[in-house]
């Protein structure tokens, strides 16, 4: 039996998720791994937008901000359960993506990059300046999800680290599964067609504008859920989540790992989340290293690390 690339990605991912905890030297590593999964979830969204559809967004942190603050604000102002707030945030992000995406997705390349960047910065400015509601730059507390205590009442007691490891791993798997299914669906093929040439895609009857908008909305929902998870996991949130640097991080993770595939995106998210952890003792050199890696990979392994390394290995073998 031949394993399809889709199954291969999902299987590899689940095996790594199952085995990794056995190698964690301390409980702290559960948290790091959860961060990898949360970032990877957002990056899978970027893969759909950038890798499949070829559109650039430098403002996706704005959606992470909406998702994150939904979890902080909705329980307080609307009395929603934190879990329902995640859905509420995702809906809000989707609607926002629809409103913003319609005009700006007509733009291409750098213009789209800057328009989306502007959107992200506006969200982070509102979060920073509306101190009465959002607590301003200091951020605000986020309610407990309550699921962990519910589980332990029913006999399944997990540490906080283990609990979030499980939640984030499951959601990443679900997200990756959806993205991989999308890739081979009619919508996915339409996205890849317009990535190649919008004009050509248009002539074979693809509704280019609505296909792009679909990709934008889907990826916004991914970013939003990722932001919600960060908020719930940290039990607090600051406007940094919607900041320019966070948007850049998302795109960099996707492109660095190899934005053409879900596996590449997840790989990139893992590398860039773990890198600062590895460099904590060289705090001063973190920025230099990150900048250098970004430049070198993009210059020499243009497809990204994962496809780049794969083709290097293949070259050796042949």
């Amino acid at each position, binding site marked *: 039996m031949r394993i399809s690339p889709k199954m291969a990605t999902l299987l590899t991912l689940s095996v790594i998720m199952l085995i990794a905890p056995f190698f964690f030297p301390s409980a702290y590593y559960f948290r790091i791994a959860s961060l990898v999964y949360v970032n990877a979830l957002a990056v899978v969204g970027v893969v759909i937008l950038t890798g499949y559809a070829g559109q650039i967004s430098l403002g996706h942190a704005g959606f992470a901000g909406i998702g994150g603050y939904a979890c902080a604000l909705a329980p307080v102002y609307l009395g929603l359960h934190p879990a329902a707030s995640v859905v509420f945030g995702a809906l809000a992000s989707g609607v926002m993506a629809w409103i913003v995406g319609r005009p*700006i997705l007509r733009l291409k390349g750098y213009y789209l*990059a*800057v328009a989306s960047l502007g959107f992200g910065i506006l969200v982070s400015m509102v979060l920073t*300046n509306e101190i009465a509601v959002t607590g301003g730059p200091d951020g605000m507390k986020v309610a407990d999800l309550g699921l962990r205590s519910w589980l332990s009442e029913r006999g399944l007691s997990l540490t906080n680290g283990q609990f979030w490891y499980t939640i984030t791993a499951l959601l990443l798997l679900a997200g990756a599964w959806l993205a991989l299914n999308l890739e081979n669906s009619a919508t996915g093929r339409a996205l890849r067609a317009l990535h190649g040439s919008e004009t050509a895609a248009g002539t074979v009857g693809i509704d280019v504008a609505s296909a792009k908008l679909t990709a934008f909305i889907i990826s916004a929902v991914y970013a939003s859920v990722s932001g919600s998870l960060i908020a719930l996991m940290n039990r607090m949130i600051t406007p940094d989540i919607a900041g320019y640097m966070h948007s850049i991080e998302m*795109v960099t993770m996707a492109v660095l790992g190899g934005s053409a595939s879900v596996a590449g995106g997840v790989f990139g998210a893992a590398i860039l989340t773990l890198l600062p952890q590895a460099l904590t003792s060289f705090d001063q050199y973190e920025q230099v290293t990150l900048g250098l890696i*970004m430049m070198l990979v993009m*210059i020499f392994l243009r497809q990204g690390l994962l496809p780049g390394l794969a083709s290097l290995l293949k070259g050796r073998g042949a």
Partner: protein
Amino acid sequence: MADFMQFALSGVTVGAVYALIALGFTIIYNASDVVNFAQGEFVMLGGMGTVFAHQAGLPLPLAALLAIALTAMIGIIFNRLAIETARNAPVVSLIIITIGASIFIQGVVQIVFGKQIYRLPSFSGDTPIPLFGANILPQSLWVIAGAIIVFIALWLFFTRTMTGRAVLATSNNRLAAQLVGINTNFMMTLSFGVSAAIGALAGVLVSPITLTSYQVGVPLALKGFAAAMLGGMGNPKGALVGGILLGLLESFTAGYLSSHYKDAVAFIVILVLLSVKPQGLFGTKTVNRV
């Protein structure tokens, strides 16, 4: 009315800085079709370089010249090592490369000079000059004069000199330019050098007013970028008008509406403008040939 004049004057000052940065963007964009997200770091290098050369004992004008020359060198090296090697890479890759360069340069400056905020002495004192019923700092006049001189010099360079026209030819069609004997690689080098130097000059001029640190580049780059798009990407006249317009809008927003949302103006304007008129105020519509 005095208020209005005061806001207008500070708007023009800030706008002149944005215009300089936008001009830098424009030059590189014209030569290479690359939007250089590291443009703000040139501004930062100009300011920081001057501060340290001045502290090391050099007189201010000499320190400024040295900093501008060094920044131009860095711009040229960046082009040679990164942009030339990554030629024909997709837009996303080029964005990541220039953002990577921006993070890298910030990192180096932070290691060498630290995270402190530095101040450069004003060129001609800090006594405000009364003007149209408001006051203007002598340093603001320096900034405005700097922007005007750079703009005129660039205009003469691009329209009146052979080299300038060769740069324009390279930007219009690289292959055709090569065919008529233009050294296109040199034109790229030149563009990056000039662009970095203009950025550095902006940094030198504005540092006495706004102070400088390793982090000042990114916000300035984003504003300069917005200004360039406002005017229409790749158009020097657009860069100048876009910069001044953005400065004025920010200043009036801060004065009459809300100082918190002063920085939002640039991006609201961009979103609205790009939605209505995607090619900017002075840009021309491009047709996509298949």
